[in-house]
């Protein structure tokens, strides 16, 4: 059934032209924009905020992993770079997150480019392993680094919350629009990129790097562009996450599963597709939040078990993800 639904979605989407895409997107955005006016259900709002956040992170990962084909298992590093930069600038130096979040994105992009420069010579699983190793090393460093709070991390001071300069809010509503807005912006960017020359070159490198190089495409340069953009988006997500939870530590920002979460939403939704990460985040976060709240206490890990089963079925019946860029042919 999931296969049929996914095929249907893929066909409907690819069968439409640009005007219809925008009209459909406007409709979805319109509905989402009025949701908070209709309900103020905490659970629903929190779930949607997290879907926006994870969907956007999925977008970030997807530019590098889905389009350029460089599977990074270390994107938590860029996420943490953005989160820590934002929190440190605000809590230590009193710099507003309105500045801190973009700076965090830039720091994450620089970190990503450095990581890329060191690892882009590696291909396939060697690249994935190198990025995973980087994530594990950074995690250990942050656990021991006193200046960034070590294992206890950094907490936002309660007294300064709620002001515009702090970009922190009571209640979910402002976060809903803030993070939702960034999700929308990122989605539009990926939509344009997908059809741009950059998107085409990244796909070409993904399909056959040697062939792309023989056509004169500088693979290293384009992979670096992808890494920079991917890291920037992931870093901004880190900053937004810090603003939302008001507390960051290595255990939450750099845990191993964080790397996997980011990839999961892209893979489930459809790797290398514009809407895949959002759809994947919808499935992933809904399952996770529902199981987390309704099965609280002893069965906290159950969400991952259920999601694991979902993932298993997707990999068996729809290996390209719910929206399948390759129309069923993925193993090639």
């Amino acid at each position: 059934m999931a296969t049929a639904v996914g095929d249907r979605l893929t066909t409907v989407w690819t069968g439409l032209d640009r005007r219809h895409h925008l009209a459909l997107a406007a409709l979805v955005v319109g509905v989402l924009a009025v949701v908070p006016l209709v309900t103020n259900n905490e659970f629903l709002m929190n779930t949607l905020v997290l879907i926006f956040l994870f969907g956007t992170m999925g977008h970030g990962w997807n530019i590098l992993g889905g389009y350029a084909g460089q599977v990074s298992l270390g994107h938590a590093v860029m996420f943490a770079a953005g989160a820590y930069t934002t929190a440190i600038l605000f809590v230590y130096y009193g710099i507003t997150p309105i500045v801190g979040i973009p700076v965090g994105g830039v720091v994450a992009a620089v970190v990503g480019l450095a990581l890329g420069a060191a690892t882009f010579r590696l291909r396939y699983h060697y690249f994935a392993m190198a990025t995973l190793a980087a994530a594990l090393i950074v995690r250990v460093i942050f656990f021991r680094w006193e200046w960034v709070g070590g294992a206890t991390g950094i907490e936002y001071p309660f007294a300064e919350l709620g002001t515009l300069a702090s970009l922190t809010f009571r209640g979910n509503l402002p976060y809903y629009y803030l993070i939702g807005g960034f999700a929308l912006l990122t989605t539009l960017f990926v939509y344009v990129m997908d059809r741009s020359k950059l998107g085409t070159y990244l796909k070409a490198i993904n399909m056959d790097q040697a062939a792309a190089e023989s056509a004169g495409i500088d693979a290293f340069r384009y992979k670096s562009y992808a890494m920079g953009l991917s890291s920037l988006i992931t870093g901004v997500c880190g900053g937004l996450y810090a603003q939302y939870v008001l507390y960051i530590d290595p255990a939450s920002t750099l845990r191993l599963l964080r790397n996997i979460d980011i990839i999961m939403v892209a893979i489930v939704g459809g790797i290398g597709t514009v809407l895949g990460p959002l759809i994947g985040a919808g499935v992933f976060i809904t399952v996770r939040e529902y199981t987390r709240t309704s099965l609280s206490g002893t069965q906290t890990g159950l969400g991952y078990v259920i999601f694991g089963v979902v993932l298993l079925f997707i990999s068996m019946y729809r290996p390209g993800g719910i929206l399948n860029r390759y129309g069923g042919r993925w193993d090639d």
Partner: protein
Amino acid sequence: MAQFEVDDVHAGYDDLPVLKGVDVSVEAGEMVCMIGPNGAGKSTLFRVIYGLLSPTSGEVRYRNESVLGLSQRALLDHGIAYILQRDAVFPDMTIRDNLEMGAYTAPDGYDLEAQIGQMYDLFPMLEERADQNAGTLSGGQRQMLEFARGLILDPDLILLDEPTAGLAPKIIDQVFGKIEEINETGVTVLMIEQNVKTGLQYADRAYVLEDGQTRFSGPADNILDRPEVRDAYLGGGTDEADGEGGSEARL
């Protein structure tokens, strides 16, 4: 003056020298075939020419200008195209998009539509299937697409790395027929070929590479008749390899 020259190139991997003095000289408009047993250094030579491997000494010149160590893009800008040995199309792009990718480095004022039109004239099959994904093509058709992609910038010299590798015998003649057609439009062709007999049938001249050195060169049609070539290339046993069937079996 030769259009393209390889001058005393030595190269290898770590401590293993593969090329121990290779000299090649190709005139404009020629079709030259490099042959030699496995491990003779044919692919290594192409890697050096295409800037994927740095030689320890020697020089590669194009129109009397050194092109050693240039990027693939710079070589394309010089008018040298490289067509990879294996199947190297972009399977999830249409044939037209594949051709457009070939024009990635096109200079200002380049007429993409006209060039694509020329490629369609040369390979009508590609026009019929322009909107089809390249992944749906057969092996021989993919090879044609690769040729077209390599030719779209109108290069003066194409390097072909085993253009018929992995193709059915029936297709091989067609592919060589196309290479000959390309050559007749004035494009210089330098190729490595494993299907020695067929390759030599079509080429003007051949080089025999053995143990990292160019041992012989001469007109392609009689190079296999030279006893020293047969000796080197067939690894001795000249007498037995005399007959048609005998030499083919060994090749």
